[in-house]
């Protein structure tokens, strides 16, 4: 059913009117660098409009812009209304057919806009939004190369697209769940029609929500890996305490769950998301909380003031519930609109997610608890509509035949890859077999980390179980062919034909 209300795009690619919308707050020097990079864009200047939305900066931003950049359309806001609102205001006054949202602390490559349009054109009709590749200030690290999210709408800036056949980043025009709001292109009328960024989010994850909503309403979001942006500041959020960012992260991911999942899935996922949020609140408090003080059977304590000191980051998880509750009527109204208009089911969107149960909190105790909870609440039933489980088999070259045997058992129900650890970097290779891929890589190769990071489950040999990358994995691990394991939480399976191997990530909980 392709009845989505998308806008017809022209058949032959042409240069289109575009408004570059830059929300800014008190970062004048970075903003000037950003504006400087836009002058070098390889794009017809007459088709570019630059809109700066000033979120009530207290520095000289407005004066300098008026004085030195008369061609910039300046929108001034009375108070800091947040990223989402600033973008929406910019979009409202923009005149371009497309809008490119750009962070004030980013500088663009000259080919940026062309590459974004190229990705839209490559993907075809339903693609209305394109994501850039975002690099760190020195260009050495990738901050965004396609996007993903876990089942609970905690977005992540890298995608699992192509796993395991091509562990490199996705290619031009490949679908992604969302585009980073820091540097993206979107068809303006569509952006306004779907409601823009949700102003309630204030900041963080509004782009996850927008992407999810676009997919639900029948549009596509695509990746433009050649549209490169360097992130030179990266400091807007960090000026606030981390507990303030946690408050936004935690409440906004709940909001995305509430708005975008179908009825039936939403209630189940929301209750699991809440239980996990409380779990993170507790675990992040570390030793600050002594559960014994809260047991009826414990001896009386001396805390007569009944006050505890708790880490703010931990408290932020609970304050986020207050914030979510305050958004509730608004979110439910949005939810009703989205659900009434949706043309894609959860089943069609979830394959874009990536690792459904990727833990939001580092720590195996949390990861194990999350899996157990997901099993009890039958979330695996929902995740069945994800792409097949990503199972990674890790071993050494002299175990090759054994690894292949495992892979062929698993390939029918899972997406399977083998990493065969080789001592020499020069021997790196990928080989395609019937139904699975085998990578030969040295243990230090970052692709090993990437493959492990995106796997839903690991099956490793006792030798591979010693690797640091395996030991720090958050996915469930089965050690096969061994009587015991050096990884305490792994399950040991002696017989590789054990039925549990096929589906062990469910029972490992």
């Amino acid at each position, binding site marked *: 059913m392709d009845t989505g209300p998308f806008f017809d795009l022209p058949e032959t690619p042409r240069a289109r009117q575009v408004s570059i919308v830059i929300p800014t707050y008190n970062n004048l020097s970075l903003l000037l660098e950003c504006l400087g990079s836009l002058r070098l864009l390889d794009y017809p200047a007459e088709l570019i409009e630059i809109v700066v939305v000033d979120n009530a900066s207290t520095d000289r931003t407005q004066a300098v812009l008026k004085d030195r950049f008369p061609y910039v359309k300046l929108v001034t806001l009375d108070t800091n*209304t*947040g990223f989402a609102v600033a973008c*929406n*205001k910019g979009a*409202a006054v923009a005149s371009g057919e497309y809008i490119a949202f750009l962070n004030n602390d980013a500088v663009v490559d000259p080919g940026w806009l062309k590459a974004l349009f190229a990705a839209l054109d490559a993907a075809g009709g339903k693609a209305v939004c394109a994501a850039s590749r975002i690099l760190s200030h020195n260009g050495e690290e990738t901050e965004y190369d396609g996007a993903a999210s876990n089942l609970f709408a905690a977005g992540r800036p890298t995608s699992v697209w192509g796993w395991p056949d091509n562990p490199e980043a996705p290619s031009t025009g490949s679908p992604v769940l969302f585009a980073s709001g820091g540097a993206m292109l979107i068809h303006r009328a569509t952006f*306004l*029609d779907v*409601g823009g960024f949700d*102003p309630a989010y204030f900041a963080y994850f509004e782009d996850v929500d927008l992407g999810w909503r676009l997919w639900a309403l029948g549009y596509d979001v695509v990746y433009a890996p050649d549209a490169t942006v360097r992130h030179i500041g990266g400091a807007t959020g960090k000026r*606030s305490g981390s*507990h*303030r*960012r946690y*408050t*936004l992260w935690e409440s906004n991911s709940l909001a995305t769950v509430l708005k975008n999942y179908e009825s039936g899935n939403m*209630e*189940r996922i*929301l*209750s699991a998301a*809440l*239980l996990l949020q*409380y*779990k993170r609140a*507790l675990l992040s408090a570390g030793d600050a*909380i002594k*559960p014994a*003080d*809260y047991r*009826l*059977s*414990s001896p009386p*304590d001396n*805390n*007569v*003031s*009944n*006050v*505890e*000191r*708790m*880490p*703010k980051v931990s*408290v*932020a998880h*609970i*304050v986020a*519930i*207050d*914030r*979510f*509750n*305050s*958004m*509730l*009527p*608004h979110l439910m109204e949005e939810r009703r609109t989205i659900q009434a208009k949706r043309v894609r089911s959860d089943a069609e969107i979830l394959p874009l997610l990536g690792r459904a149960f990727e833990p939001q909190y580092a720590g195996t105790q949390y990861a194990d*608890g999350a899996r157990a*909870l997901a099993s*009890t*609440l039958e979330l695996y039933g929902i995740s069945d509509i994800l792409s097949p489980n990503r199972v990674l088999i890790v071993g050494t070259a002299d175990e090759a035949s054994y690894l292949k045997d495992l892979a062929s058992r698993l390939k029918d129900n899972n997406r399977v890859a083998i990493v065969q650890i080789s001592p020499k970097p020069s021997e790196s290779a990928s080989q395609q077999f019937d139904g699975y891929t085998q990578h030969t890589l040295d243990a230090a190769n970052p692709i090993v980390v990437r493959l492990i990071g995106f796997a839903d489950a690991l099956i490793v040999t006792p030798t591979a179980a010693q690797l640091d990358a395996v030991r720090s994995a958050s996915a469930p691990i089965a050690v096969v062919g061994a009587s015991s394991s050096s990884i305490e939480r792994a399950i040991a399976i002696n017989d590789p034909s054990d039925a549990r191997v096929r589906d062990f990530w469910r029972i490992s909980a």
Partner: protein
Amino acid sequence: MNYPPEPSPIDEPSTSIPDILTPAEPGLERYTETDPDSVPVALPSVTVVVLNYNGLKHLDACYKSLRELDYPVDKLELMMVDNASRDTSLSFMRDNFPTVRLVETNQNLGFAAGNNYGAERAKGDYVAFLNNDTRVEPDWLMEMVKSVLAGRDEGVVCTSSLMLDWTGKKIDFQAGGVNFHGFGFQPSYGKPFSGQEIKPRDLLFACGGSMLIDRKLFLEVGGFDPDYFAFFEDVDLGWRLWALGHKVTLTPTAITYHRHHGTAGSMSEHRTYVLYERNALYTIYKNYEESHVHTILSAALLLLGQRAVRFIQAGGTELTDYDFTNPEQEPEPTSNIHRNAVAALLAVNEFTDNLARMREKREWLQARRRRTDVELFSLFGQPGRVNWINHETDATYTATHYELLNEFGIQNLWSHLPKEVLVISPDVLPVGDIPASGSGVRAWALGKGLEGHGHNVHFTMPAPAIQGREGSVPPEYVAGAWTTENLQSIIDAMVPDVIVSCGWPNVTWTPRPNLPLAIDLTGPHLLERAYQGYRDVKTNSAEKLAALAKGDFFTCIGERQKYYFQAWLAQAGISIDELTDDLQVIPYSVDPKQPKHHWLDDWSNSEVRFVYGGIFLPWQNPAPALLTVADTLEQAGRGTLEVIGGSHPFYPVDTGVYGPLLEKLASARRVSMSGLLPHDRLIEKYTHAHVAVDMIMPNVERELAFPSRTINYLWCGLPVIHPEFSEVAHHISDYEAGWVVKHDDSEALRNVLISILANPEEAHRRGINAQRLARERFSWDDTIIALEEFVRNPRMRSERRSLLDQEKVSATGVTTATAAVQTGPPAGYVVPDTWDKKLPAKLEPVYGKRRKLTAQIGARTSGLLRVLAPRAGSRMRPVSVDGQMRYALPELIFGHSQGQRFYSTQNGLSGIRFVISTFGRRNMSRLVLHIRPNPGGSYDIYSVNLPTHSFKDGQTVAFRFPPIADSANRWFYFVADSPDAVPGDAISLYAGDRLEGLTAQRYEDGLPAEGCIVMSVEYNGVRA
């Protein structure tokens, strides 16, 4: 038999919430006559299981009463399960009650598993669970057994005893309810008991402290869930039994006396809070059907977080610190939070960790369930009841509660069930034998209209309004009357689903009640105040706006008023979207059952009786019309006019033009006058009169006001002569229910009068039409619909919602800002800020001087205090302290508390000073002092535990704590208890009649009481 206990004047229960204000008991009426002769021949064997943990001091009383049980010895097994006590309970039992079977556990298994342990080992067909801090009547067991046997065929397997306090004067457990997220409550707790009849009924759950259950079945269904350890396991068991198709009842003739919280009272509150929060989650997760469980669990988890947030704030943390836009750097890595926030967090984590096990229990139950969730909601009592924490600051909490219920569609599950409604009347209700005012009649009509739709409505009227006439009013209304001091307490004790305040002035006395509040805006009260000369316009307006902002739903009495009030509500911050739905017109309404009008068959020997009735108010001017009538009748030499009325019976309202008018009418020969009449007698007058002269001169107030007296005339079958400008004039024309005349056309009025005198039968015909009009347009069961829908699905306006609405992106990309002032009510009814300047001449008060009014109110208030004082004195011992008369409050022993709610006027509240009474002896008990946000709240801001042995009588004790930064303009609750004190070894506090410089309400055992604890407060270490 010591039941019912002899009442003793000394121990008269303190002020309690009267019957009329207590929510109806949940549960279906199931009246089963138990005939003593029909006792089955074969009595079942029963094991009485008493669970004991360090309860040595309770055992003697408990087992002495069990030894007296009137039950065949060969059918009775007495068992004590000792939950690994550390005291000498076991040896005491061996020495004193050797026939009792002692069963020991290895460790303290908690209440649930401990009782299961006993049930597993019991020999009886039935098992009776009894708390150790109780004693029972000799027929306790027999009554429960008979009641279960009588109901077996209907599925009864379990019954609850009636539980009274230790002295038998107050109810402890009579009915149990549970709200949708699993929090149990006891709606009758603390209600006075004087042997009144309590009917047997179905209950959701039997009180775990005294109940009887089929032992085999108990074990089959899993008993009390051992994962609970303690608290709410009885709620869960009852819920499970009902879901499985069984029934649970109350046997009111089986009586248990309970020392309340003999065990639980000594536990730390944050520790018990973990169990309450966790167990409530267990209960809902196990018991709801698959189609509801995840929705309700999500809502419950969001509310748990909202409660935790309150405790985060209670610890001194400002939420603004977590606001992303907060410009302040916060180097401090930790926040201070109240322990209950941590408790909530631990509770939910324990729930998560045990979820897999709970799921097995859930699946077991769901596979066997025989009743749906919706069937069970009728047993909950108030499924939507707000889990009460702190009414002072929890508008956000209750708003969230209702938003979740409504947005998630949960409230729909029980919208068919009746709600508990409290109607606050600003004036005398039409009950008893004293005159009611229009606003009292209005309140009555709204309440009766809601009752007609099945709701349980409780009325309260102002105590000062019936002062001195209490004998003419039914006692429950006297006892339930409100004062400015007790209104909040009435609300707190009742936790109604909805409050209906008739008029906004009622709610100026309370903070936002934090329950769904409907305000009926019966008339342009502000204009009335202006006519009365009561304060100045600016002060009145500010007070009105503050009161309106507390409302969640509004009704007014006419279409014209709607436009007038829309402007006010918009100014009070209610958004335009809300105004469309949340301001509805309910015309003045009357009973669908109408009085019979007495028409004459033969007019030849009778006069046509014209009548005018009502309170004399300064904004009303019937003088031209009444003088015309008097004159016309005199000229015609026929007909009479009776003027019934007088000045306002309670409020000191000026009588305006009535003084001079009455003087003139006094000399008119065909006019008679009588004073205000009680409602019934007024109706009697009206139904024997023939035509109502309902003419009044127009002014701002009259054009907006809805003529309630007109509807009363019509309802009585009186055709009215009515002015053209009035809102109901067109109805009167349409129905030919009277005659519509221009207010200043005395010639037309004269002609109407002459035509009536000439042809009274026409008046008869129009009188019949009048009743038809009243029935078709103004019957309260029809007019109430808009309010009834709000009561059925209550909601609270969120103060936070509008923040988001301001930034919505519309389809055109233009931001729509909510601008309340841009509403467009029809010209003529908007009252701008400067309205007083426009109408100075008309609004000039005649007599109502401010000073006079203040003095009158002051006199009434001190009169009220005088009424209270003798009662207070009768139960306290007067002593002279610091040269003033003080009263020692009763001994503060376990299970009791003395508290005082007081208003802090400054920031930095840091201490409370009060005076100790030692009863002239050295006491060894300990005194626990708490400072809490309010009496309903269950958590301490601070508490301290003091030895009492060094206290001297009359000594002032200061309870000091770290300054509470934002204490200004908030209520706090100071409460003292002494859990280890017994009579003879206890201290107390001194009280007096009133306090200087501190607004306060005394509480005894958590309920409002007379007098005041002598206390003063300190701010930032300095005595105020």
